[in-house]
């Protein structure tokens, strides 16, 4: 289940970064992948659409602890948590 979520998140990230999904590693940061603030907002939108969750992300507080975007793994963890909370 969670591996599947991780893979889906990476696919979303790869699509926005316009790279192959294999190039998206857990340690990659959004900066590493060349994603700007608009790209990040699109990723959040795609995650919400795909998983039916509401992501507590505010572009004015990108470092807020509500939703950690410091790395791909952090985003994956955040999505797994949100999906679990949804039940």
């Amino acid at each position, binding site marked *: 289940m969670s591996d599947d979520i991780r893979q889906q998140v990476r696919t979303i990230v790869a699509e926005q970064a*316009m790279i192959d999904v294999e190039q998206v590693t857990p340690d990659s940061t959004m900066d590493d992948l060349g994603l700007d603030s*608009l790209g990040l*907002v*699109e990723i*959040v*939108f795609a995650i*919400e*659409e795909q998983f039916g969750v*509401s992501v507590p992300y505010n572009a004015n507080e990108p470092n807020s602890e509500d939703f950690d975007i410091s790395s791909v793994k952090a985003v994956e963890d955040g999505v797994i948590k949100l999906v679990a909370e949804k039940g």
Partner: protein
Amino acid sequence: MRRVVVTGAGVVSALGIGYDAHVAALREARSGIGPIELIETDGLNIPIAAEAKGYVGTEHFNRNELTLRDRVTQMALTATGEAVAASGIEISDELAMRTATVIGTSMGGQHTQDDNYRLIYRDGKQRVHPFTVPKLMANAPASWISMEHGLKGPAWSVSTACASSNHAIGQAFHMIRSGMADAALTGGAESGLTYGVLKAWEGLRVMSKDTCRPFSKTRTGMVQGEGAAILVLEELEAAKARGAVILGEVVGFGMTADANDIVQPSLDGAARAMGAALTDARVDPSEVAYINAHGTATAANDKTECAAIRQVFGDHADRLLVSSTKSMHGHCIGAAGALEMVATLSALKSGIVPPTANFEEADPDCDLDVVPNEAREADVACAVSNSFAFGGLNAVLVARRFDE
């Protein structure tokens, strides 16, 4: 006084993509009005429009570009690309600071608004795409033009309904003439053929179910259109110094408000706008050979406009050629004035006056030579282009043939 010339023009309209296609259709009296194909028409009472059917965004932009650009911006950028290439203008770092971007649009990114509002109101979705705001905002076309061409001078959008692009071109012209800018990209874009916008127009009961017949006694109302036209304006000496081909000279601009009614036109406001434009141009009414009319094919406009022309031009009105090219490219609202300025410039340059198409029967209330159905060869040294907006905001441009 500094003089201002047009050195390039680009067009997307129901008559085709590009200046040449637009002008060729005007000369052939070919109408771009037909059944709506761009959107679902189930439920529309009036399923006709002047759609830019040949314009497909994916042929001009990649996926990422389309993510951020509504159809109105796409059309504006395509027309701008053509205008800049045609003019041959090179925007140096220095000129970039002195180049204005003034773009008319009445309603901005209506496809974005319609598509996304439908998702939340009808489909019960909880969210819209994150770029909905930057796509639908009315200044998006102006902003994208400045970004794509690196124009760093004054830039803004003008929204005065059907007069938007005449107001835009007029202000760009005045800025160059006064020395506030040395060049400008100006004109207008509109892409409001959406279900919501068309329903709104249906509500006003001014739309034709068959076609647009300006000045014809058998007229049945206006037909909505979409498109974009962008002009490159330059200060004359700079244009000459670089050997630019000059399409025509902008010599006057007049604007007035009716201060009367939110939809009904006013003879007084229209006449004062034409008078103000001629005064600004230092042109005597007897010098004008052609008027590209506002000519919406509504009873209210056509009668009022003809009476206003008579008031301003007196006996000379009987020697004027007056045509409405909306009969062919439809009423493109915020792009109307710019598309019509292209028609006007082509008449100045070629001596071929575009006709009023779809004309059937003379109307005693519009007893001017409206150039019915066939283009006319004429010696046009000076021409006027009228735009009279809902809300009583009038904007009139005067242009001259450029003789070296």
